[in-house]
């Protein structure tokens, strides 16, 4: 029960006295969590908002109100349109592939076979390995002088000279996308696997008795039964991917045309030492995220 509901019930005075007293105790228990949320969520958001309307640099103590100047500077920055395009490509294409791969693997892991536990653990590894360690490895695999991909493609005769994957616009974005998908599919796999395990086996047995093939079963039973889980998984994946930063920053520092809105916000704040521009960029990101969160909330209510 939310704090507001408890307070409302408390005021209406309609509950039995014992329950009212219980609710009062409940409020005390909730207070620490509310205080923590205010400190770690509400305060930084409000602080960023205030910062975005001021000239605010870490190296200067003068802070003047500048209205919407910071927002104007951010949206007219030559990297801004590219960063929006990249963010949506990274979030939507990334989310789709994560869900598709996650679904295929979840279907496999939902079957009984020897070594299933080991396979599950191995498939979870990309999610468990520290990001810096895996990104360093990927960097080496994509390396333009010694990378394993270059060696393989050369031996297969696909290329006749080494390709600098992370140094070519377009290809670099595809590379960071591949790494992002590789790191994110296990989470999708686990969520979908949990969904698959909640589908009654009787439905599959009945379908088989009726002569349904694997494709019919998948599209007529599995997908409709997973519809809610699937839509929530896709939405959550888009939100998480939209927010991701570390893969791109560690692989390219936003170079070779791979800047997303998050890396650009970081660059404004901590590279260009413009907290004000970084905050303005963060507020713009928040607006985009608010749309996704609104859809998420509505979906949750419907469910």
């Amino acid at each position, binding site marked *: 029960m939310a704090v507001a509901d408890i307070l409302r019930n408390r005021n209406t005075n309609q509950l039995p006295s014992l329950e009212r*007293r219980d609710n009062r*105790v409940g409020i*005390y*228990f909730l*207070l*620490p969590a509310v*205080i*923590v949320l205010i*400190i770690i969520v509400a305060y930084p958001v409000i602080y960023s908002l205030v910062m975005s309307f001021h000239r605010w640099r*870490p*190296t*200067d*103590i003068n802070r003047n109100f500048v209205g919407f100047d910071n927002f104007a*500077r951010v949206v007219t920055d030559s990297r801004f349109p590219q960063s929006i395009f990249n963010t949506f490509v990274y979030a939507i294409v990334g989310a789709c592939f994560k869900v598709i791969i996650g679904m295929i693997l979840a279907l496999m892991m939902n079957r009984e076979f020897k070594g299933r536990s080991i396979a599950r653990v191995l498939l979870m590894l990309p999610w468990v390995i520290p990001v810096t360690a895996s990104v360093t490895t990927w*960097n080496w695999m*994509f*390396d*333009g*002088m010694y990378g394993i991909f270059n060696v393989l493609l050369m031996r297969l005769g696909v290329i006749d000279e*080494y390709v*600098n994957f*992370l*140094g*070519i*616009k377009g290809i670099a974005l595809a590379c960071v996308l591949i790494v992002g998908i590789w790191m994110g599919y296990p989470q999708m796999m686990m969520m979908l696997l949990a969904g698959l395990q909640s589908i009654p086996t009787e439905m599959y047995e009945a379908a088989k008795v009726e002569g349904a093939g694997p494709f019919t079963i998948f599209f007529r039973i599995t997908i409709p039964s997973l519809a809610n889980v699937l839509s929530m998984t896709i939405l959550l994946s888009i939100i998480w991917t939209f927010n991701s930063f570390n893969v791109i920053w560690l692989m*390219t*520092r*936003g*170079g*070779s*045309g791979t800047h997303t809105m998050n890396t650009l916000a970081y*660059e404004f704040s*901590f*590279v*260009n*030492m413009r*907290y004000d521009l970084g905050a303005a960029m963060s507020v713009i990101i928040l607006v985009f995220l608010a749309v996704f969160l609104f859809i998420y909330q509505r979906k949750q209510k419907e469910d």
Partner: protein
Amino acid sequence: MNFRKAMAVLSVLMLSMAMVFAGGSSEASSDSKSVEVWRISNPDEKIIAAFDQVAEDFKAATGIDVSYVLVPTNDFHTKLVTSISAGVFPDVIIWNSNPGIEFANTGKVHPANGILEEIGMDQFGESIIKMFEIDGVIYESPFMVRPAGMHARRDWLEAAGYDLTMKTDENGKYYIEGLETWEDLLEAGKKITDAANGKYGLGFPMSRKAFGDSAGFCFSVIASFGGRILDDEGNLDIDTPEMRAAIQYLIDIWNSGAVPSAATTWDGNSNNQFFLTGDIGIVCNSNSIMGKLNAESAVKPEQLVMLPLPKGPTGHGYQQATPESITMFETKNVESAEEFVKYLLSTETQLKMFETMGFGYYSPLKKDVINDPMFADLSDNEKVLLNSGDQYISASFPGEPDARLTQLYSAFFYDDILSHIAVDGWNVDQIIDEMEKTASEMLFD
């Protein structure tokens, strides 16, 4: 019921107390007889031992505790900016990126004038002191320098017909005939490149990930060609024949094929690594390479030759390598910090440090230390590094120290020039336009 109520109140109280204690600044909790010193983390055991010995001896002499906070090079700037933004200042930092100048406007940097007057300004030379001074206030004390220079493959150059005999000019500067200018270096790079066999002449990073190596190379070329960002009156002065010549030279280097295409994604270690694995002929780097060459390494110590810094059309050669300096902040431990800095800058302490860590990663800046017999018996390669000490320049060169130019240097300004050349294929006009736009926004907004 009473018990539950009591528990609830107790948990609120405990959480509040935890937050109060967790939120306390390090300044408030620190002991007045201790100094917190931030410095670059370096895995070299000899350097760790030298600094630890200093802390131990200082504690024995003064009773003041020194605690080092070791910060990785790549994170130093971000950690410092976020810490200072949160109002938490370290007592002392030892770093090489002009932090005192960069944060001078915060009013929290403790001036070093008193300490340097006590030690003797003439111990460091005017040009070095000037790197740390704004309007008569010295914000940083010169400590040592991490020498940087052109590391080259002796065997490759000799095979290409170069005579690598080191000569000395009338000013006492070393030079090698045929390898004196940036143009000479490019020609040499082309001659020793054998791309078909994976051998490249020049290992200059042209990437955003190189943590100063790209920017340092680009800035050194621009300075040697006479380019600058601001004129004497502080106005933008980018579009000059000197700057255009420097940019054209950087484009020529990229187009020559002597730099591997992978250089656009190199990180801070790549050029050293590829030199050490024997794939690159010449790299411009701080002196972390020399110490890694041994009988087992792919490149042997005798295959290394340090080239004196190449000159540009100005007749001068420069290397962006701001000396490692000591910056003090106005914390409650400032008196202890001053004591420590004096101790660290004393000739005895520095000689003892060099005894432990040797010459190489660090080179001395203080004249009494340089003139010590310890440095009379260096190898030719080491002598070249020591001889280049007065050619190291800061990000404000050729003007007075300017916090904005230091920030411009840290903000990928020079790295992006190289990226635009190598990734975007831009020409001189496009790059000059972009430089003017970016510099104007960053310096005057």
